[in-house]
């Protein structure tokens, strides 16, 4: 049974329906890209856009220091991948597929072991219909977030 078929079986067991075929291309792509890496893996997703991807690079040193035993992967749309060229903390840059947002696919569920150990999806708070970061510009932070 290949990876997609394992996922199909898991989705069928949970939801009673088959996994959409659009997942197949993404699953095969990720599987191929991860093949040489048997270590622990983090996926940081920022599908768009240039400003957000660039801003995100400011988090990667902290990520590497916090998870030194993990390889850091970043997924973004093809046109923004060059923003991650020569980044010393990024192990590999992946092309973003919308179906990657499915946590169970990325992290595993049931008999499916998953692709990644940790999956960061901060864009969900700013780039989706579930946007929740806007507070009339009046919110404050009680923590020191600067490195």
């Amino acid at each position: 049974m290949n990876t997609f078929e394992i996922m199909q079986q898991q989705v069928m067991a949970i939801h009673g329906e088959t996994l959409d075929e659009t997942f197949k291309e993404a699953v095969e792509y990720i599987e191929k890209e991860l093949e040489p890496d048997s270590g622990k893996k983090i996926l940081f997703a920022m599908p768009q856009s240039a400003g957000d991807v660039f801003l995100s690079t400011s988090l990667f040193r902290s990520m590497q220091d916090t998870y030194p035993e993990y390889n850091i992967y970043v997924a973004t749309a093809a046109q923004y991948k060059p923003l991650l060229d020569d980044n010393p903390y990024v192990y590999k840059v992946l092309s973003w597929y919308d179906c990657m947002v499915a946590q169970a696919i990325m992290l595993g569920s049931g008999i499916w072991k998953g692709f990644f150990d940790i999956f960061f999806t901060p864009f969900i708070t700013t780039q989706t219909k579930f946007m929740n970061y806007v507070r009339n510009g009046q919110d404050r932070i009680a923590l020191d977030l600067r490195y």
Partner: protein
Amino acid sequence: MHLIETYALNCGLKIEKPHIKIEEIELPSKKYITIHSHCEKGPGRNYRNWNNVILELISNNKFDFEIIHIGGLESERLIGCNDKYLGKTNFHQLAYLIKNSELHLGYDSFPVHLASHFSKKMVVLYNSYSQHSYPYWSDPKDIVLLEMDYEEHGKPSYSYGDPLDLMNKIEHTTITNSVLKLLGIQ
């Protein structure tokens, strides 16, 4: 809360400086400022009085800078600007161009964050709360952020369209004077 603070909190991480590869290109022969005028994603961030700003700048006899227009080829051409780099720089070359500029002028977008990374002086126009995307790594004395009073003029649309056209309520003379002041020109 700034976007990067939202991301940092979501991931439980701290914020350092960003990183970008730099690729050298031929720079303008004299000192220059950069202007980013056109938002290809929608009209809400397109300011219609850039030509007035440029004319006011170049008509000031103490303003001795070339004005380099950056952005995509679809950008409306501006009087008095050097369009040589328009649509011709990749991210790495744009970083080099901005790194060597004297000031960046434009709307809330990627070049603003690049300019902040390189501690450049800048004047930025916003059509929603600047608190969410101000130049995070800049010294406050180096930046002027221009936006309307949202309580008085209406709340931001949080999209690339803006029925209230808030950005275009910013006076062009305010922009010009902000640029001149940051450049030390009275």
